[in-house]
């Protein structure tokens, strides 16, 4: 995740250990189920999850949809919610950082809503919007907006005071200082928020789908649990983790590109 160190001639053992460790872990997992140490109703061996993955690509039973449909539903919800939270959160945070009136009005409400875990909104969103897309997008939006606002706000607040003074002595207006100094200097913090917000969104997506859904990766996990099928549960978890990791990776690349664009 961006903090790889320069590797200079590390001992062979050190380079092999990660592979040994993961291999051992998977083997132990497989063996513990196959040998009957762990009952099959509690855990599925990795090989079974792997074969189920290919099976689920075309087989909608027993949970009602093929894997691609689940994944597509989740991605759709996540992206809508994520996009909306960036769209609202970043400008709001920027404005809160610089304009006293915006901060005075928005901050108390923000502080009031912030400590509520996003999935606590599930019942209300079900009441209000039903179990469709809207409700889940709302929950994901609530989850993603918090880091966006905080990072944009802190980014503006960390603008070097001497830069602001410099602009003031040239007679710059508040609006000029905001656009030309505060926003550019908040950019690195804002890019940081992209990654955090994505993680929040993804976590809460699963939460939202556990309770109120009829498709989606979170729903797949729940159904697996209800049907007593640990292989489906594990498959769902792996899919969620994998797609989350891939999304994070993509955002990471975008972030680096954008950052490289502003500061050589």
């Amino acid at each position, binding site marked *: 995740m961006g903090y790889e160190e320069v590797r200079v001639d590390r001992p062979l053992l050190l380079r092999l250990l990660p592979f040994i460790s993961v291999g051992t872990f998977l083997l132990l997992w497989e063996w513990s189920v196959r040998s009957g140490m762990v009952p099959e109703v509690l855990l599925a061996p990795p090989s079974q999850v792997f074969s189920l993955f290919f099976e689920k690509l075309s087989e909608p039973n027993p949970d009602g949809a093929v894997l691609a449909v689940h994944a597509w539903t989740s991605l759709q919800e996540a992206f809508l919610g994520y996009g909306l939270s960036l769209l609202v959160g970043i400008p709001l945070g920027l404005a809160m950082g610089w304009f006293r009136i915006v901060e005075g009005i928005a901050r108390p409400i923000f502080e009031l809503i912030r*400590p509520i*875990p996003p999935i*606590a909104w599930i*019942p*209300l969103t079900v*009441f209000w919007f039903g179990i469709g897309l809207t409700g889940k997008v709302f929950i994901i939006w609530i989850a993603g907006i918090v880091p966006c606002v905080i990072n944009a706000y802190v980014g503006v607040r960390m603008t070097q005071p001497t830069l602001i003074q410099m602009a003031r002595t040239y007679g710059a207006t508040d609006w000029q200082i905001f656009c030309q100094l505060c926003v550019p200097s908040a950019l690195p913090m804002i890019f940081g928020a992209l990654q955090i917000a994505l993680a929040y969104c993804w976590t809460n997506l699963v939460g939202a789908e556990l309770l109120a859904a009829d498709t989606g990766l979170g729903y797949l996990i729940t159904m697996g649990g209800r049907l007593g099928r640990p292989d489906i549960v594990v498959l769902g978890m*792996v899919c969620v983790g994998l797609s989350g990791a891939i999304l994070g990776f993509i955002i990471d690349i975008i972030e680096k590109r954008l950052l490289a664009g502003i500061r050589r």
Partner: protein
Amino acid sequence: MSSSIANETVGSASVREGRTLWEMLTNTYVLYFVSLAGFFLLWDRVAYLHVFGDSLARPHVVAQKLYMLSQVKFAGTNLAGHIWVSTQRVLIGFGLASVIAVPLGLFMSLNQYANAIVKPIFDLFKPMPPIAWVSISILWFGIGEFSKVFIIAIGTFVPCLLNAYNGIRLIEPELYDVVRVLGGSRKDEIIQVSFPASFPAIFAGLQISLSVAWTCLLAAELMNARDGMGFLIKRGMDTHDPALVLGGMVLIAAMAWLSSLLISLLERKACPWKRSIENL
């Protein structure tokens, strides 16, 4: 010296002491008051006008509901009981995870062999949202107390470990040189530099963990529970009682806020040298 003056001027430019009517109206505290009053009024109006049908309770109804719950038993215990049950779960899960994860993270960053063994497995689990564990923990441990503690522990484990680990890795190497120049041993380096320098990062990890813990608790209690604040919310959902849902949300928000305040206080005690940057 000049930088403090710089702060002063910026401060005086943005927070002018006002005497005119406009400046008095835009005084920060006045704005806070206006904002909160506006928020509650709007909430009340929206509920009163049935914008969301009967699915939003007016604020005073929520307050009444909470008061009532604190007086009578609901599902076997009163309000304080529900709060305590939930808090207990969080404390046990959070405590368990942090006691294991923080030392493990520190150890991983200090010993590359431990790192090479644990890190890859940890990386496998890291991207998995903690809430995804809810179903499997019910499969494994049933719907008892332990399955909830387990989810909370799993959820809090990741940020605790990650921050302890990075807290040490990101220490400036110059700090070690100070000890080395004075002839300190590896042990001195670890005790004098690594541990104290990683404190702020560890506390940041605890803060994140705690908010994850409340989310996990809620997920676990929403899925299945017979008591706790999540249970109140779930019951409100099942019986279509918005006042109960909102009451539960208020309670859990208050508890989450209080616990994070507690960690901040602890942090201030543990690392008084850390300058607090103004943040939200």
